[in-house]
């Protein structure tokens, strides 16, 4: 699978979690792709930390507006029903648990639900942006990430090695290999991509996976 095929598979699978009327925050990068797969006829309202509810698609060429961007600093558009508010109110609605679902990328996830995704020591200093607020307080936190690093190393670990973004915060992990639920007993594999076996998924995972008794094929594979 190409990198792009993996990303689209992950985004499509997460889109199946959306429900009509959901207010959702999609992180920068892969999570943003989820917006492309909202089922037809379903109204899902996207929140952007910059202070916007009802984030629309990228504007048509020539209609870009420098005063209308998302938290990834990309130009976006308005929808009927869009609202704007300050950064403080934006995070009050996140911290206050009013956003049903957050999707964010991951560098490492541990079997206890710890997440690392904001800094690699020695690499460029970027900052955490809104990630720490989002992961600490999401009602449902989905991690959208490729199953392994570019050089094939596991990203689902016993314990994170990178500096943490949040402690015990992850609810679900979606990779090109499957759909995983983080439970107090460990990480449960609930769905598996058709082209791999549970043994192959385990081999690509450092944490010990619990295979669900009703393991299902991952939709879209």
């Amino acid at each position, binding site marked *: 699978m190409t990198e792009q095929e993996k990303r689209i598979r992950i985004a499509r699978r997460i889109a199946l979690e959306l429900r009509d009327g959901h207010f959702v925050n999609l992180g920068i990068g892969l999570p943003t792709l989820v917006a492309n797969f909202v089922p037809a006829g379903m109204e899902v309202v996207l929140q952007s930390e910059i*202070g916007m509810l009802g984030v629309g698609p990228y504007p048509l060429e020539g209609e870009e507006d420098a005063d*209308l961007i998302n938290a*990834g600093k990309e130009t976006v558009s308005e929808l009927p029903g869009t609202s704007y508010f300050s950064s403080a109110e934006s995070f009050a609605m996140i911290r206050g648990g009013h956003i049903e679902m957050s999707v964010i990328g991951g560098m490492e996830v541990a079997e206890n639900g710890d997440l690392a995704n904001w800094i690699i020591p020695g690499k460029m*200093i970027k900052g955490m942006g809104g990630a720490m607020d989002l992961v600490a307080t999401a009602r449902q936190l989905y991690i959208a990430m490729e199953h392994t690093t570019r050089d094939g190393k596991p990203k689902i670990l016993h314990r994170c090695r990178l500096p943490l973004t949040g402690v015990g915060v992850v609810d679900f992990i979606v990779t090109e290999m499957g759909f995983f639920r983080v439970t107090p007993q460990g990480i449960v594999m609930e769905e598996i991509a058709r082209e791999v076996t549970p043994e192959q998924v385990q081999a690509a995972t450092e944490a010990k996976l619990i295979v669900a008794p009703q393991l299902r094929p991952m939709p879209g594979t």
Partner: protein
Amino acid sequence: MDKTVASAAAAVADIPDGATLMIGGFGLCGNPENLLAALHRLGRRDLTIISNNAGTDAEGIGVMLAAGQIKKMISSYVGENSIFEARARSGELDTELLPQGTLAERIRAGGAGIPAFFTPAGVGTVVAEGKETREFDGRTYLMERWLKADFALIKGFRGDRWGNLTYRKTARNFNPVMAAAARVTIAEVEELLPPGGLDPEAIITPAVYVHRIVLGGGYRKPIERRTVRKG
């Protein structure tokens, strides 16, 4: 009452070396471009800047970083600035990185007279180092202090001579919270209207928070990531 100041240069003239400033904007969106340029030209140094980002190498706060005018930055995301990176690594620039919601709430608290609050963001991470934690209803929270500044430089869309402000789309971002958290708040706007020109229901920053107001001009409004769809 007329808080109008004739020029951006006049509005920032009394900002001294070593001042602590809040600067509105999210990246280059909602930046007080005229006030920033005037402050840069004024050549003040050793400034502490509280702003979500640090501009880019050539734009916004990045210009003052490149000129060595900034001693310390308190931000949440600085990823588009290689000068920030170089100066932070060499130790010339002191930096404090905070979760974005914590930054916004610390500023809000400063303006609202709340000296500290508890948040779950950053618990168990480097952000928590040296900070008090407390348990409420079985969950651990981190104590964060208010943030205040000597001056806030903010960008509204429309304003009046009392200092009432409206904003435009996502250019609002940190501007209204910063307006309340500084001893002196200086606002620039794209249109200055006579009293009564603003719909009272639409005013986001009431006049009480704004001390000086300047009519800005020549807005460049650079776009950091121009993304479009096919028609």
